[in-house]
């Protein structure tokens, strides 16, 4: 059971793949917004294509028809009227009518997109360098977004460090994660499957690796996924729990387990080693040191590394911190 869960987490490391789409331009439409956005997009596309072809057609016709035969040609164009107010007004007003219509449709869609329905399933999303963490109603934290089909889901978005933006192309929606305030988006999934989730607001080194997936479950699947996770978490031994936290809480983005230094020091051989800090002091890495480093990471900066880690105070409980300590002990 547990190894199966760990395996499923291991596969989440491999990049998600968009399911095949029947549209050249847009990814598969998997939410109720997709119909609106794709319809408006298609209208704009064909209208623009028509406008562009008309302009190009007339332009190239004139170029060919009125082209001077050679450089020496001294003839001039036929000087007719140089302005025609009726024409100017026509080609101002006709586009304006279209633009007003497009604006109104875009506005209606946008209001819909920004107004979360009541009684939606609420999932918290937290952006941090360089990981999304989703907190489910039962308190479970996961790096993947799981949602049921045919149900309104509201994502409440926060950031712990810099700007991020939660972007799910298949749902045609995105919203910035702004530190210091809440933002939200909502969707109503219409297709089951796995869809890529990106960070769309530049956030530094590993911005382009801040990718995860949204899993839309068939009816009942979301609840059983939740139960399964819960059961597994309850029965885990500390080392397995620690490994799970390592994968899920974003530790692995900055700490390797094979000795290579990433943004932060590697966990390999960490336990019991002598640490020297940027301020010149030092300590032996024991249980207290690791707990302090998780809860107050800015307190002791290992020399040679930037003070980049956010605090996990209140985000990990004692059992989970204990798990991480036990997991680190196994990395010799």
């Amino acid at each position, binding site marked *: 059971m547990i190894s199966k869960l760990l395996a499923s987490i291991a596969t989440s490391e491999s990049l998600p*793949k*968009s399911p095949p*789409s029947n549209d*050249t*331009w847009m990814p598969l439409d998997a939410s109720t917004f997709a119909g*609106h*956005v794709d319809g*408006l*997009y298609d209208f*704009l596309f064909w209208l*623009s294509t028509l*406008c*562009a072809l008309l*302009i190009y057609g007339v*332009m190239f016709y*004139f*170029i060919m028809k*009125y*082209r*001077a035969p050679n450089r*020496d040609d*001294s*003839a*001039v*164009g*036929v000087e007719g009227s*140089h*302005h*025609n107010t009726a024409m*100017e007004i026509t*080609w*101002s007003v006709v*586009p304006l009518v279209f*633009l007003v219509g*497009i*604006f109104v449709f*875009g*506005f209606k*869609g*946008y209001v819909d*997109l920004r107004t979360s329905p009541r009684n939606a399933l609420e999932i918290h999303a937290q952006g941090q360098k360089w990981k999304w963490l989703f907190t489910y109603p039962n308190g479970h934290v996961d790096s993947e977004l799981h949602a049921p089909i045919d149900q309104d889901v509201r994502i409440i978005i926060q950031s712990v460090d*810099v*700007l991020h*933006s939660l*972007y799910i192309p298949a749902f045609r929606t*995105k*919203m*910035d994660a*702004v*530190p*210091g305030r809440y*933002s939200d988006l909502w969707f109503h999934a219409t297709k089951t499957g796995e869809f*890529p989730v990106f960070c*769309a607001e*530049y956030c530094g*080194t*590993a*911005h*382009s*690796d801040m990718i995860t997936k949204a899993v839309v479950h068939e009816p009942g699947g979301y609840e059983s996924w939740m139960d399964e996770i819960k059961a597994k978490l309850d029965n885990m031994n500390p080392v397995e729990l620690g490994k799970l936290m390592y994968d899920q809480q974003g530790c692995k983005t900055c700490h390797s387990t094979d000795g290579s230094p990433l943004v932060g020091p590697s966990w390999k051989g960490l336990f019991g080693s002598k640490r020297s800090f940027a301020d010149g002091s030092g300590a032996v890495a024991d249980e207290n040191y690791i707990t302090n480093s998780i809860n107050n990471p800015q307190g002791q900066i290992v020399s040679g590394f930037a003070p980049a880690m956010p605090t996990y105070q209140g985000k990990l409980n004692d059992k989970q911190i204990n798990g991480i300590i036990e997991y680190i002990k196994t990395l010799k």
Partner: protein
Amino acid sequence: MSSASTLIPADLGVIPSKPEENYLKHDKGILSWVFTLDHKRIGLMYLVSVLGAFALGGFFALAVRTELFFPGPTIINHDQYNQAMTLHGAVMVFLVIIPGIPAALGNIIMPLQLGAKDVAFPRLNLMSYHLWVLGALFFISSLVISAADTGWTFYVPYSTTTPTAVIPAAFGAFILGFSSIFTGLNFITTVHKLRPPGMTWFRLPLFIWALYSTAVIQVLATPVIGITLLMLIVERVVGLGIFDPALGGDPVLFQHFFWFYSHPAVYIMIVPAFGVVSEIIAVFSRKEIFGYKFIALSSVAIALLGFLVWGHHMFTSGQSVLAGTIFSAITFLIAIPTAIKILNWVTTMYKGRIHLDTPMLYAIAFLWVFTIGGLTGVFLSTMSVDVHLHDTYFVVAHFHYVMMGGAITAFMGGLHYWWPKFIGRMYNEKLAKVATVLVFVGLNVTFFPQFLLGTRGMPRRYYNYLPEFQGLHQLSTIGAFVLGLGFLMTAFYLIQSAKSGKKAPANPWGGTTLEWQCASPPPYYNFHDTPEVNRGPYEGYAHLKFDKETQGYVPTE
């Protein structure tokens, strides 16, 4: 406009000047350039510097595109990519496109088109250039220390927390802002005070109208970015707490400040391009421009409306729905003056006598790409569609079609159009045509696939990407190299022309604006006696005929 009947052919010939050396040879020695007060020399120094910066920005662009040929690491690592992407954007925006047409081309041409001896404040003009150099040095110092990796947008709190050298880059942009403000002040005053007798506002060449509209934006909007960047620097140094939420600030406030300048700055970049294209299309169609007043006043309309649309960059930032709606509505309005321009240009060609020399090829390329750039802007102003497309490659493609396809294409057109005037020599027309085609093809192959990447969900500023996007990225990279080849060729034949090109006539294209009534290259004082103007800027093509001996246009007898 006065009727053409009062016009006599001799009015269109070279205005006689006292014998003196042209501006290139008038004084000798490096200091006669570094401390010159002559607008033509300052413009030429700007031109060379801007082209140098363009090469640097292009180098970073190719580094970025090469890296993206494969997903995952290839030639540079994550951080180097982010630095290259930032420097590409910052160099191209602040060092190339903003000063490109006004400060380089406009500096030389504006006083000539006004029959003036110089701009209103020659010393301020020199100071603008010196500030440009200083700003560029700050950019380079950031590059040498530890290049900023914030993107050219400097969004907080990333920019206040990243360990890279943000302060030199931001201070560089601050200084470049003053350079831009001084140029704007100078141009506004020049248009108001130095017009020759008889040149009423509606006898101004459209290039002057465009530069004037641009100058108004430069003067009014640029101080805001100056203050914003200064606050960013203070925040980084002493933890001021205006933007960083950790200090009680608001990062969305920074976005408002930033785009309050940077959206009008888009028009600082593109409105001068409208001016260049208006000149070229009239001259090479050998026909008076259609809808002069509409083209002139639409520049002003765009300049003014451009101040009220900054929030369309922020539909997904958490800005209120009401604010977003107002910004979206005003953004749609900008499409109207833009459409007016395109349709008037095309109509000008009707029953014209169209010469397809290199400047005209660039103007046609401009119409092609700018139409796409403009129409895709409508997609992005549509709020619900923008939510999907925002911060994806669709936006990257859109603004490259406008900035690279619009502003740079027009800049190249203007460069080829006025090159004989600047240097007094012609370039190799055949090579120039081949290069123009390469640039046009490269441009479309580079940026069109990016629309498709964007709609399919590829976010921008990504070092790595999902394997499904690889094909389109590779196409885009191939296009970028074709584009690079086109510009390399351009550099080659322009250098060749400067060294050993054929001597240029005063009026190689048959233009009727005043710069063509001045020798090529112009004498030191341009015009000894201020010319009197009794006609509109595009009247009198019928009085000019091609002279085979000089390969230029001369008045009919």
